[in-house]
């Protein structure tokens, strides 16, 4: 290979990490890669905070009598777990960290379209986070993350207004990020990077950005109305003042159902990249996967009433929403079939990111199919507000979105840090996570089907065995989350250098050195090839020399 002699030179060159030092150079940066790392730090803090609440919930449910915390404290715990995890971890995790880092690299641009707006959105995010943190520290909130009225707007005696205010502010960070992505993808693609040559990761982020921009204003104004009713006694949702409590649920779920797709669409994008790279095959049905992403984003806005089947919604509306909820399963299934077809006859390797990719498919299918149970009107009456629902959405959000996030972090970690993580340990952690996850949440399907309601701090003794299993699973899951954190930090200092394209893969982000230079590319690339064209790229073969030698250990030399 003719590039080998220069590799040593490239490695010492200026990159986005070593170009400047000091706290100022980070807090005032407009480099999308550094802002991505700022987001990584922020969402990791919130992930562990939300995780602490989850641990306390599971510990309390270890015994049927709810010995650890009182009912009132338990209400606060599950509320704050939901608020922190959804608004401050799951929604920003993949878009603001991986999307921010990768979209300009993937389309061959020097940065996002509005770099300062990008930094501003990180500050807004943290400002919102700090306000929510203040609400938590000064006593917390007990309405559930859904803020159902009139409890939230009239009766709750906890910090509703300040929490809502924090979420309101953080919402602007979502809107600005979405806007930035949309404009960037429209206007800053490198020559030859046509819409149908974009990596699917970019397509899914485009779809996600549409939801950010079109949905977030609705939740912002809805929560502002709750605050207005609470503070000024305006009759909007409170029936005693002439309002309608169901109006809140309509407005809230208009955003909050599509918010699920904000979490899962980017994870689907990650999974698509992982599956084709580690199957060494061209993605099956590129345009169908791209169109399915947009279809999910649009149809996702038409299904929100499935949260209100037993809430007093008209039977006619319930039927419409049930039907539309079934429809959204179609593009999701298209994706699953396309991934499966991509794996078929591929030369599949079991690298860590691929374990997460396969894990995503399995868990997402479980979560998606149980979603169809819930979309069926009759079944929903039986399992509504039980642990069946809790298990369902954790399969989507944790099994889907978090698996995608971790898979993506592993896959692009060599690009982000320039280093390889310890492969054997990483595979072990991925398997621990998968086992821990299923042990935590599968018993909850059974619990819910047997009738255990969600959001109670105590339960009948016959449910204890399944709850103990779930708590045991959660402790395994916790180890699975701590391990990657430890070895990622370790690898930043001690990991072997990754080189520009360790897996190797076909995207533009792999053409530039790792870590990338401050302006991503020394020369704007011109794209003349089709995406994921592994069959026509015999030069790209897994494992690449650097991964084979430095990470997998000595193997019988091929050729």
């Amino acid at each position, binding site marked *: 290979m003719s590039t080998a002699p220069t590799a040593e030179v490239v490695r010492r060159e200026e990159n986005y990490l070593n170009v400047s030092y000091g706290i100022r150079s980070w807090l005032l940066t407009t480099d999308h890669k550094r802002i991505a790392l700022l987001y990584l730090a922020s969402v990791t803090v919130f992930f562990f905070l939300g995780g602490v609440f989850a641990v306390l919930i599971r510990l309390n449910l270890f015994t049927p009598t709810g010995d650890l915390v009182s009912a009132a404290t338990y209400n606060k715990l599950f509320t704050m777990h939901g608020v922190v995890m959804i608004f401050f971890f799951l929604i920003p995790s993949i878009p603001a960290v991986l999307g921010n880092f990768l979209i300009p690299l993937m389309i061959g641009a020097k940065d996002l379209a509005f770099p300062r707006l990008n930094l501003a959105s990180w500050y807004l995010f943290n400002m919102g986070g700090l306000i929510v943190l203040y609400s938590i520290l000064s006593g917390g909130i007990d309405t559930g993350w859904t803020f159902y009225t009139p409890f939230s707007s009239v009766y709750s005696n906890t910090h509703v207004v300040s929490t809502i205010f924090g979420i309101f502010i953080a919402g602007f960070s979502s809107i600005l990020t979405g806007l930035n992505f949309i404009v960037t993808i429209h206007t800053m693609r490198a020559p030859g990077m046509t819409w149908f040559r974009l990596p699917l990761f970019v397509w899914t982020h485009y779809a996600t950005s549409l939801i950010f921009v*079109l949905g977030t204003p609705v939740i912002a104004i809805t929560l502002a109305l709750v605050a207005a009713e609470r503070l000024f006694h305006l009759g909007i949702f409170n029936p005693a003042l002439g309002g309608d409590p169901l109006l809140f649920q309509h407005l809230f779920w208009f955003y909050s159902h599509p918010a699920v797709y904000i979490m899962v669409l980017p994870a689907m994008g990650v999974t698509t990249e992982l599956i084709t790279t580690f199957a060494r095959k061209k993605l099956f049905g590129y345009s169908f996967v791209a169109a399915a992403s947009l279809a999910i984003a649009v149809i996702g806005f038409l299904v929100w009433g499935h949260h209100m089947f037993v809430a007093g919604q008209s039977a006619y*509306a319930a039927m419409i929403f049930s039907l539309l909820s079934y429809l959204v399963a179609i593009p999701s299934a298209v994706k699953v079939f396309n991934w499966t077809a991509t794996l078929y006859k591929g030369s599949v390797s079991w690298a860590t990111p691929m374990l997460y990719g396969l894990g995503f498919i399995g868990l997402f299918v479980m979560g998606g199919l149980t979603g169809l149970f819930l979309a069926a009107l009759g079944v929903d009456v039986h399992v509504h507000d039980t642990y069946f629902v809790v298990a369902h959405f954790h399969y989507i959000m944790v099994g889907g979105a978090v698996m995608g996030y971790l898979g993506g972090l592993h896959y692009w970690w060599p690009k982000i840090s320039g280093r390889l993580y310890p492969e054997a340990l990483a595979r072990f952690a991925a398997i621990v996570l998968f086992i821990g996850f299923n042990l935590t949440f599968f018993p909850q399907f059974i619990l819910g089907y047997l009738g255990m309601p969600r959001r109670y701090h105590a339960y009948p003794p016959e449910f204890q065995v399944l709850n103990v299993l779930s708590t045991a699973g959660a402790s395994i899951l916790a180890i699975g989350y701590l391990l990657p954190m430890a070895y990622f930090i370790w690898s930043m200092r001690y990991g072997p250098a990754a080189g520009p394209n360790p897996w190797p893969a076909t995207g533009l982000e792999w053409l530039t050195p790792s870590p990338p230079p401050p302006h991503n590319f020394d020369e704007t690339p011109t794209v003349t090839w089709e995406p994921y064209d592994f069959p026509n790229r015999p030069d790209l073969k897994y494992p690449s020399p650097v991964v084979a030698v430095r990470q997998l250990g000595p193997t019988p030399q091929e050729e």
Partner: protein
Amino acid sequence: MPEHIVSRKLYFLICGILLSLTLLTWGVALINLGRWNIVLALAIAFSKATLVALFFMHLRYSPRRTQLTLVAGLFWLGILLLLTMSDYLTR
């Protein structure tokens, strides 16, 4: 992008229309038309917002993509209203 220059005269004209529509809203509020009061008030408000967006916010002279953004926003608002009303009107 070349900025479109809008004549001062047009601005004053639009401003005049907006002010007279405000007077109209007030006038209509004094007559009892039953449920049509709210319909009329909203219709006037909507046309005023349209004028502001088209002329004061230069949407009329903007590229198609910007215009499409507004249409998408209205379309999504339409989804919200349509499906919410599908509940309220059939209870």
